[in-house]
């Protein structure tokens, strides 16, 4: 019986704190995205638009690792029984991807453009075999600095 209570406490705690942290993270993401909106970032292989002479290029990357809370894990395991979209992991992946791209942009202040954006996602297992604990997203690209006028 005590295991049931522990389980329920973990569920509730995971849910409450997890939702709070997630909303806070999304707010931060949206703010920073708005600020960095004008840094041209594309997945094209060539610079977009009229670039002018290029001063230098460099490889930039943004990396982040985000974990699910307990409630999300249980909800996902239930979903795996019946099939369908795992809503609880969707927000996780969305946050992680956007965060990684934001960090990539933040890592090269003063860049004119970022091209060849690639995003790689990998799961980090908890060690108990098949339980996915957290996800790591790596965003890479080439930052191009235009020749200062």
């Amino acid at each position: 019986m005590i295991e049931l209570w522990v389980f329920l406490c973990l569920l509730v705690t995971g849910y409450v704190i997890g939702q709070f942290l997630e909303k806070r993270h999304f707010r931060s993401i949206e703010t920073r995205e708005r600020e960095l909106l004008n840094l041209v970032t594309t997945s094209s292989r060539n610079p977009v638009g009229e670039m002018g002479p290029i001063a230098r290029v460099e490889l930039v990357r943004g990396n982040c690792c985000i974990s699910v809370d307990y409630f999300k894990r249980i909800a996902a395991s239930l979903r795996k029984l019946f099939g369908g979209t795992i809503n609880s992991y969707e927000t996780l992946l969305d946050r992680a991807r956007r965060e990684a791209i934001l960090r990539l942009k933040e890592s090269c202040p003063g860049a004119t453009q970022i091209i060849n954006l690639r995003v790689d996602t990998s799961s980090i297992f908890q060690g108990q075999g098949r339980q996915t604990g957290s996800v790591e997203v790596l965003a890479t690209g080439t930052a191009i600095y235009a020749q200062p006028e």
Partner: protein
Amino acid sequence: MEYRPRQPEHNVNVSRRHPLKEFGQLLLGLFAALAVIYFALGLAVDAVVDRLSAETELAIYNSLNLDDLAEHFVSDKEAGEELAQTKSALQQLLPCANLPYPISPHLIDSPELNAMAFAGGAVGITSGLLEAVHSEGGLAFVLAHELAHFRHRDHLRGLGRGIVLITGATLISGGHSDLSSLLGPAVNLQMAQYSQAQESEADREALALMHCAYGGTEGAGELFEKMLDRKDPKNNLGHYFSSHPQTRKRLEAIKAWSHPKAKNPTENRN
């Protein structure tokens, strides 16, 4: 070609459904499915248990790990005198019970009024019960009730259902996941929980056994009468689970079946 970025109005990569609502729906669906499966497999377990041979039954008991049972009991040396009446009652009842394995009585040091049957043939009686129940008929009824559980293989039914539940959970969730560790503690393999129907049937069979062994059922209700006298709300641990309305019903049932004008209890069974 112009690069014009925009912030999307709402996040397309995330579903709109509220996580709690989805969780609730999934959980409900899971419970419904489990309930249906459990019920269906319960019927199958019953069908199998009814048809087991005595050898198979013995083999199952031998495969269970019952070594730590002895911790609950007072050692036979110390309990010798107090169990004397129990042993003599058992000797009267066992020929009628016709069980393929020996029954060994043990004393449990506790003030509560309780008796338990353990898979494999051990019967535990609390010292509280032995102090409260004085008549041979009362004690014989308690023992006959436990023997009836053995005869009906009620342990195996509970065990079978528990195994079905855990196996199902393990198969679905694949090993040591949260789901199977959640269900694990819910199934106690040693102490079976008997349904009310099983209890009622055991009461009836106990009276039949007493009829066979003693020729009468005098004093059978003594345990329940003592429980009602005590009016102790804490008297509901373990196997007897007697809240007072339940005890009263059982006492009335016993009296009805034992009435000299009523038919022999074995004939009443359908």
